[in-house]
């Protein structure tokens, strides 16, 4: 490291990769959809709060005229961060899908272009290509999350009723970091199978199946959360039945249940954790995410480095 000459091909591959996926229509479409949903989440939070606030203010006028005692503003009773709870759902649904497609396309775009043999006969190590693709993915996901963060921050600043204190802002920042980490897991999955699968379809299908399993199947086994409830940020945190079965599955499978881990983290950071929630998982949720992102990232990088570079294209 630090050797600029040795790093030059990596930097070149990163910028080329980012430029190529930016031109991919599926990538652009999903990224756009995600960002639109972020705006919608922000708007819904803002509009619901404004409505409640407006009704409260009018009631205050009325009650003051009646000479009644004024109750506290319900808007101020909930944490402003909880406004963004829908974000957690959008990240784990459309955000994760967008991440899979980005990771997949980072490899598929070169495979479809038929340029792998031309890349692999250049004086660079196989692992350089893997590292370059991994870094490109991190940059792409960071861009997506940063954009979401900007939109949400603008929403907070537009709501004069809310003042986030220093702790609030840092919790928000950590939430985006965790969201990025969660998306990286799926991005790396897309990259891994984009490199390892023989066909483009299978390369997409496997990560999507993993995503479905993590989002809808595992939560049912570990915590008895049915697929519809898994979509709701709050009811997804319902307590598992206090049976021995769920005690064991929750403890043992919980660390792999990344969608749940992400929701728990989101609920803690965005202040919408139900007071009754009991954590039964063997390792902390944040550790699960960190280990998963690092682990899948390493496997994906290696898979790219070890790809069959003789093939110009996917098998016919």
């Amino acid at each position, binding site marked *: 490291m630090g050797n600029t000459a040795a790093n030059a091909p990596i930097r070149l591959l990163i910028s080329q990769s980012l430029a190529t996926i930016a031109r991919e229509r599926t990538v652009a479409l999903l990224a756009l959809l995600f960002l639109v949903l972020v705006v919608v989440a922000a708007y819904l939070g803002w509009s619901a709060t404004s409505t409640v606030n407006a009704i409260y203010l009018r009631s205050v006028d009325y009650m003051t005229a009646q000479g009644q005692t004024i109750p506290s503003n319900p808007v101020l009773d909930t944490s402003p961060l909880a406004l963004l709870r829908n974000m957690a759902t959008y990240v784990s649904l459309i955000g994760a899908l967008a991440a899979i497609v980005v990771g997949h396309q980072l490899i598929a775009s070169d495979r479809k272009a038929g340029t792998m043999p*031309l890349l692999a006969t250049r004086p660079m190590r196989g692992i350089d290509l893997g590292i370059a693709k991994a870094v490109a993915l991190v940059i792409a996901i960071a861009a997506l999350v940063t954009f979401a963060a900007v939109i949400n921050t603008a929403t907070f600043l537009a709501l004069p009723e809310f003042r986030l204190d220093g702790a609030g802002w840092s919790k928000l920042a950590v939430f985006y970091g965790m969201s990025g980490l969660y998306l990286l897991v799926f991005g790396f999955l897309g990259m891994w199978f984009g490199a390892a699968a023989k066909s483009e379809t299978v390369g997409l299908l496997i990560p999507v199946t993993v995503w479905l399993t993590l989002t809808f199947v595992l939560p049912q086994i570990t915590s008895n959360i049915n697929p519809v409830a898994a979509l709701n940020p709050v009811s997804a945190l319902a307590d598992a039945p206090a049976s021995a079965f769920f005690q064991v599955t929750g403890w043992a499978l919980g660390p792999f249940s990344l969608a749940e881990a992400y929701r728990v983290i989101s609920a803690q950071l965005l202040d919408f954790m139900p007071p009754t929630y009991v954590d039964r998982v063997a390792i902390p949720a944040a550790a699960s995410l960190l280990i998963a992102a690092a682990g899948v990232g390493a496997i994906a990088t290696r898979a790219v480095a070890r790809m069959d570079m003789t093939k110009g294209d996917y098998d016919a």
Partner: protein
Amino acid sequence: MNTYVVETRQLTKRYGDHAAVKNLSLSVERGEVFGFLGHNGAGKTTTIHMLTTLLKPTSGTALVCGKSVTDQSLEARRHIGYVPENVRLYDTMTARANLLFFARLSGVENPDRRIDETLDFLECRDLAPRLVGSFSKGLRQRIGLAQAILHRPDVLFLDEPTSGLDPMGIKTLRDLIVRLNREFGTTIFMNTHLISEISRTCTSIGVLNQGELVFRDTIEKVTERYGSESSLEELYLSVTPVQAKGAA
């Protein structure tokens, strides 16, 4: 310094039980235009893949410009230019953008000037601003050749370079290969089916049959011994007995 640009010893590639290339010991000298002949499935492409560091041999050794393609693959790659069969580039980028990317990856200094020189050499400067996706097969082959010689490699590997080209395209490509060899001294290693190509372009030939080298000599000696092009064809057929299965 070693005069061999390509040197293999007992080079072998197996796919399961099937040996695609068997104990290939082959040397190509600096400055040669080497034509590698063989039926479909003879193992020509597999050999090029091993020589261009894309495929690990099962056993044996291969040196390109004295560098092992397995243990010194990065050094070997600095000497290699490669045009795969039906070469493709990034369709959504212009020819120049493609060439700039590959020139930089190869560590070419002053890449813009080198690209201009290369396109001038290939007589296709006008292609630079156009999208590669809009190119005919012949034009794509031309830019494919350009990307392979940007870094002025010692040896250029061409896999069936004339496949799919019309007679005019074939002639143009043949002239370019000969000029490249004469003007830059580039050693050419070319896979082909076409015997007519060999006699017009190559200075030496090797014939591969079912993964084994069955003939190797200079064109001079061959013509001395066998005379015309038609006898070259007879020679080829005599050393590659047609198998009932698979030989199309």
